[in-house]
């Protein structure tokens, strides 16, 4: 069998869990392996119990496993919490700093803190020692970690780099020497050079926005969306982006609309609570036909809910948000690479159709890193769909909201020519001025709604994963793609017959109907991270499809193949 290894780093917030996790993930990645990592954390800065989970394999992976091979325990609570997931796995711990009762042979003791002080001169290096020790235990080449440390601490100077490298080496040596031969998961002969990327959902959205030509970002911080704002802010200067932290989310989306009206590709990032505050401005985007891209990192609600966890429970809210009726577009990326391309696409759709596009992600995808094929930025073409200055100069009258067959009116920018551009949140005539007449109202409503029809053509049909015909069709949307595809693979290997119908282009739905034939004779199970089965309802309302069963999870945790398989068994679907 192909070696696959599952590592969890557990401990309190502030103990350096993320540092170890990221360093290990990158290390494996650099050596050409496939990595998948995910994070679980509480809404606090110090203390509590958090973890970082990594799965490494030499074949592509897109989900976490429920089973652990190596637990790096930074506190004794971690041992307690995750012992049961270990089954055949081992624990790496600093017994000098953490009292644990168990005297299991599975426990490998390395004095992280002591080694850190001896080599780096400070306990601060304990996490680097632990990283090194983990690799030592796995008999893994240390050079990859050294490369990672050099890259990570490049800005901090030689001294810090060397301290880290020394700490890593010492941890590595200690573990390797002390436990040589005990290691079950040697990757020693597998190492090659990678051309793949390791990237999280949030970073991929940020990268997609930059590739898609974002010029303006206004946001108010909110977990789990903040990472996208941070990413774009970090690269704003190079990419000519204005980034502004708004005083609240109302301001954020109104800023985006002001920027967009004036000509910038503009975006905001938020989570459900912030989106709630953006609702009125969403309608303004609809009414004034101002392009806007909204990144929504979902988390469990209602209200503050579980701020650091995951859910897919804002779908119908986003679909119907704001008074009145107007066209919008909803995309839900399934993986970081998909997030990259969809984000760039979102900007083109927003510009072409002059409407708001909402990218729906969630904490799970936001904070998970996947090994992906290198993104192809050349695939991304930026098209602004604006009138040119020549076109404008040749016009005697310019009508911002001219009635057209496809509902899309010619767009010009203020200051671009001698024609003034007028946008209005009231119902307005073709020039953009207030008009309350019934005649005008009907024409304008129909014009705006007409845009949806053409937009449908740009929406992708759902992907079918697995065989074309199967007994059971799983249905999913957005971030659950990874666990769902793995579920299909695992169960089909076991002799069951399953396939997956997965949606990333959520609204308006593509009008192709081939997939309806696929589900005609199978049992359909819609798998969602929410309690009411929102995507099922959407399919019912928008595609007139009746789903047989809902498989729902709403405890704040993402799906794993194991969870889905257990639930399918409980529901007697398999």
């Amino acid at each position, binding site marked *: 069998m192909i070696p696959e290894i599952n590592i969890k780093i557990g401990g309190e917030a502030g103990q350096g869990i993320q540092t170890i996790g990221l360093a290990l993930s990158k290390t494996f990645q650099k050596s050409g392996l496939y990595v998948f990592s995910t994070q679980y954390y509480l809404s606090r800065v110090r203390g509590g119990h958090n973890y970082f989970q990594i799965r490494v394999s030499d074949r592509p992976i897109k989900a976490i496993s429920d089973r652990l091979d190596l637990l790096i325990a930074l506190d004794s609570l971690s041992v307690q919490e995750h012992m049961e997931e270990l089954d055949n796995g081992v624990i790496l711990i600093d017994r000098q700093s953490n009292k644990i009762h168990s005297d299991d042979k599975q426990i490998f003791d390395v004095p992280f803190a002591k080694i850190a002080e001896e080599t780096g001169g400070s306990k601060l290096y304990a996490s680097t020692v632990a990283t090194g020790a983990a690799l030592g235990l796995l008999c893994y080449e240390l050079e990859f970690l050294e490369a990672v440390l050099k890259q990570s601490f490049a800005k901090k100077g030689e001294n810090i780099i060397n301290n880290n490298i020394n700490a890593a080496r010492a941890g590595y040596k200690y573990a390797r020497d002390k436990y040589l031969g005990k290691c079950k998961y040697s990757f020693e002969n597998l190492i090659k050079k*990678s051309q*793949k*990327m*390791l*990237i999280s959902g949030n*970073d991929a959205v940020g*990268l997609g926005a*930059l*590739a898609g*030509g974002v*010029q*303006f970002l*206004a946001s108010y911080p909110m977990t789990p969306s903040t990472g996208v704002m941070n990413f774009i802010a970090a*690269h704003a*200067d*190079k*990419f*000519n982006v*204005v980034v*502004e932290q*708004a*005083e*609240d989310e*109302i*301001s*954020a989306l*109104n*800023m*985006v*609309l*002001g*920027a967009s*009206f*004036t*000509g*910038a590709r*503009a975006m905001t990032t938020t989570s459900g609570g912030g989106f709630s505050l953006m609702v*009125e*401005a969403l309608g*303004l985007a609809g009414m*004034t036909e101002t392009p806007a891209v909204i990144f929504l990192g979902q988390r469990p609600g209602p209200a503050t809910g579980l701020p650091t966890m995951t859910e897919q429970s804002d779908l119908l809210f986003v679909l119907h948000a704001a008074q009145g009726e107007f066209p919008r577009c909803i995309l839900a990326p399934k993986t970081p690479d998909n997030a990259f391309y969809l984000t760039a696409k979102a900007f083109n759709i927003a510009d072409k159709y002059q409407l708001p596009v909402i990218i729906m992600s969630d904490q799970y995808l936001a904070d998970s890193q996947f090994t992906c094929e*290198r*993104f192809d*930025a050349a695939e991304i073409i*930026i098209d602004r769909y604006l009138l040119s200055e020549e076109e404008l100069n040749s016009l005697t009258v310019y009508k911002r909201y001219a009635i057209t067959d496809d509902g899309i009116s010619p767009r010009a*920018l*203020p*200051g671009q*020519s*001698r*024609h*003034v*551009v*007028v*946008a*209005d*949140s*009231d119902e307005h005539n073709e020039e*953009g001025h*207030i008009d309350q007449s019934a005649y005008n109202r009907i024409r304008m409503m129909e014009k705006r709604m007409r845009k949806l029809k053409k937009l449908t053509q740009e929406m992708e049909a759902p992907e079918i994963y697995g065989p074309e015909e199967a007994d059971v069709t799983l249905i999913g949307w957005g971030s659950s793609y990874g666990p769902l595809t793995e579920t299909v693979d695992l169960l089909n290997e076991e002799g069951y017959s399953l396939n997956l119908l997965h949606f990333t282009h959520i609204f308006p739905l593509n009008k192709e109907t081939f997939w309806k034939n696929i589900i005609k004779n199978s049992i359909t199970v819609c798998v969602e991270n929410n309690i009411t089965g929102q995507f099922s309802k959407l399919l019912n309302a928008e595609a007139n499809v009746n789903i047989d069963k809902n498989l729902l999870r709403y405890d704040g945790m993402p799906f794993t193949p194991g969870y889905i398989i257990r639930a399918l068994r409980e529901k007697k679907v398999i």
Partner: protein
Amino acid sequence: MVTMEDYHLDTEIEWCPGCGNFGILKSIKKALINLGISPHEVLIVSGIGQAGKLPHYMKCNTFNGLHGRTLPAATAAKLTNHELTVITVSGDGDTYGEGGNHLIHTIRRNPNITSIVHDNQIYGLTKGQASPTSEVGMKTKVQTHGVFNTPLNPLALAIALDCSFVARGFAGNIEHLTNILTEAIQHRGFALVDILQPCVSFNKLNTFKWYAERVYRLDEDGYIPDNRITAFERALEWGEKIPIGVFYKKEKAIMEDGFSVLKDGALIKKQKNHSIIEELIDSFI
């Protein structure tokens, strides 16, 4: 030369005859003409209310957005194309009520825009509820016992936030108002111009006559608007005598200065450099 005719729009004005808004509309046009700015070089961002209708009555780029939300939209528009003259126009309810939070933070940002508040001390369009600046005791259908809350003093508030230009005009004195607006638009930074605007239909207390009897020009007694404490003191004057004019003016860095990407030209004119995206992608390998 830009003329009144350039700003003319052939349309019916939906304000009540005699409304103070007419004077404000005229003053805005005059100030822009004074400064030689053409309609297509101006963007007026307006709110919802009687005041918010203003850009429908003159030729100019217009973003008539939501009630209370002029300032974020205007700030972003300015950052996107700082070659435009950006002006916001909205009511006292809009700016100080629904939009209060944006006012505070826009003052802190200090973008180079002018914010014109038609302060009729009432909600006009919704037919006469108290606004944040309504006088204590004024009775309405909602405030049946009369207004209780301490009226908001927009000038004192702005000075407390170190707003870079703080002024008050009177819709009944078009010449003076035109001067203030001209100065406000010229000012490099955020300029708040609160305008006493009689609402002939709903505010029977603060009428043209009421204002006219009370207003006096700050500059008449040689007042110089450069001291924050003195400005604050003058801002507190309200009653038998109501000062109009520029209360406070300060040169400080504007928001646009804070963005290095805006240094050499408007954001929308910046070209993208495609090679850097490849570099950034590579950093994830």
